[in-house]
């Protein structure tokens, strides 16, 4: 098991380095720089001095190594949008909203989705099943900013139950959390349902029935456990979907979180902040990848000894 985790960690480090190089190159090929200012052009001499001050006149590979040396010490550089701060201090306050809203969304959405999926599988072809399938399809097909818009229109504009946007009062959290929750809810409802149905049709369930076990013991003792593996597989895409969705949810609800900085940095060509955010996201995705792999291996002994998931 330890060898397995180490092997995974190593592959994650390699992935991180490759992704960081790609991001670095992409960011540096974006046309326009921070000191090109259209409204207030700088004199060329001043511009050159500024470029030299930030080390932007050096060859790319030198810039990359200097940058990565800083990243290891958690020094992501000076954001162009706030030259008096560091990227870390700029983003320090942005973590909390994203964590609270995204975390609450997953913690509410995932269990609800699993329950809905179980209910749908056990009541196949009844209204519960149709409702669950409809919700899952809606949640998985409609982009999250459209879901957010619908929530805002219904609960903020028409019913006037909650404020449409803002931070930090908790009554402003309700709608963004609901918007976040649709992603894990839909994902888990769909996959739990199909995993349960798949397991219910397995021969061993027939054997259990033939042995005279009660339906409750079959479902809660055997079927649920055997359906857990596909649910773990979904963890990674669900996590990525939620994290990516945060960009849109935060833009819709004007939440000052990481997602908002992601958008504002793209708009203001602040590639220092943008790169820091991309690298943090990559680390998060890699961690999610490891967690889902470990859970997977813990549940399925066949994976542990070098097998791969299919």
């Amino acid at each position, binding site marked *: 098991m330890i060898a397995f985790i180490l092997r995974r960690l190593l592959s994650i480090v390699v*992935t991180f380095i490759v*992704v960081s190089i790609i*991001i670095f190159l*992409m*960011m540096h*090929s*974006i*046309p326009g720089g921070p000191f090109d200012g259209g409204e207030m052009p700088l004199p060329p001499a001043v511009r050159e001095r500024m470029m030299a001050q930030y080390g932007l006149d050096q060859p790319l590979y030198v810039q990359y190594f200097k940058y990565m040396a800083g990243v290891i010490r958690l020094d992501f550089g000076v954001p162009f949008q706030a030259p008096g701060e560091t990227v870390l201090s700029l983003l320090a306050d942005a973590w909390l909203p994203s964590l609270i809203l995204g975390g609450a969304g997953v913690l509410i959405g995932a269990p609800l989705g699993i329950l809905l999926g179980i209910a749908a599988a056990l009541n196949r072809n009844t209204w519960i099943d149709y409702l669950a399938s409809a919700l899952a*399809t*809606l949640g998985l*097909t*409609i*982009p999250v*900013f*459209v879901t957010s*818009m*619908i929530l*805002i*229109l219904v609960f903020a*504009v028409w019913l006037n139950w909650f404020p*449409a946007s803002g931070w930090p009062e908790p009554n402003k959290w309700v709608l963004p959390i609901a918007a976040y929750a649709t992603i894990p809810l839909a994902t888990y409802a769909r996959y739990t349902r*199909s995993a349960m149905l798949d397991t219910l049709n397995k021969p061993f369930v027939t054997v259990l029935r033939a042995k005279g076990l009660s339906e409750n013991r079959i479902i809660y003792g055997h079927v649920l456990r055997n359906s857990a593996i596909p649910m773990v597989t979904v963890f990674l895409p669900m996590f*990525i979907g939620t*994290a*990516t969705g945060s*960009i*849109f949810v935060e*833009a*819709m609800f004007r939440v000052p979180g990481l997602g908002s900085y992601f*958008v504002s940095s*793209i*708009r203001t060509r602040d590639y220092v902040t943008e790169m820091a955010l*991309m690298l943090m*996201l990559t680390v998060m*995705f890699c961690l999610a*990848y490891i967690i889902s792999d470990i859970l997977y291996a813990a549940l399925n002994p066949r994976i542990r000894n070098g097998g791969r998931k299919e």
Partner: protein
Amino acid sequence: MTATSTTVPAVPTTRRQRSPLWFAWKRFAANKAAVAGGGVLAVLIVLAMMAPLVTKTGPNAQDFLTNSLALPSGEFWFGVDDLGRDFFTRIIYGARVSLTIGFAAAFCSILIGIPLGALAGYYGGRIDEVFSVVPPLLAAMLLAALTSGGFVTIVIIAGLFGWVQVCLLVRAQVKAFKEKEFVRAAQALGASPGYIIRRHLIPNAVSPIIVGFVLAIPLAMMLEASLSFLGIGVMPPTPSWGQMINIGMNFMYFYWHMAVFPTAALAITVLATTLFGDGLRDALDPTLKGV
């Protein structure tokens, strides 16, 4: 005919042989959601194609400046936007943009996905795994920001990130067929792998290719809307629903039509296309369910 009829028992004419397509059609027709989705999609395509006939002005004509922000009425079905443009016209032309990008990007997706899926299926590689780690939307956002958007760019980006599903579908089919006797026979007769893939394996993967094509359309439409919503997709004044939702947000408290119609249009179109594609998948090949 008469000679054989003595040895073979007469087959009643009512139980004639049905083609696989007939069964596929039966399965599709039984799926009400898929039929409804297909119907809505067909109506949208017709509306988008006949846009100049069903609307009174061009999508960018500011003909109603004195009526700016007018609410929906008999004269302006969906109201007028902040720049004096008939909103119904904008929405219909938005369908044109959305559907064109959806179909064009889906075409790009199958152009990339078919060869890669066939190769991966035949030789047993996993090209798509590299791509599954990179979150497509983030990468697409970076690319769009890098190229500062535009119609053609969005199509290419959507194609670049939409081929994975086509690749998976084609790979599964090719993998299943490459062990069949007729492929073995072709190999025994000395056919090259390239010939077998082109002549035997890809033609046998037609139904997953159709399914992959249809399912790539809503993905591309969603990507376009998301990028346009962030202001790095289709550039104004080209009408795009994502862009309209972004603008509508600023007006929604007093001029609800600015937010409601593009939201509804986008949700309905994406949903209808997905339901149609899912139904098509289940009908053409029930074993593909849940890929």
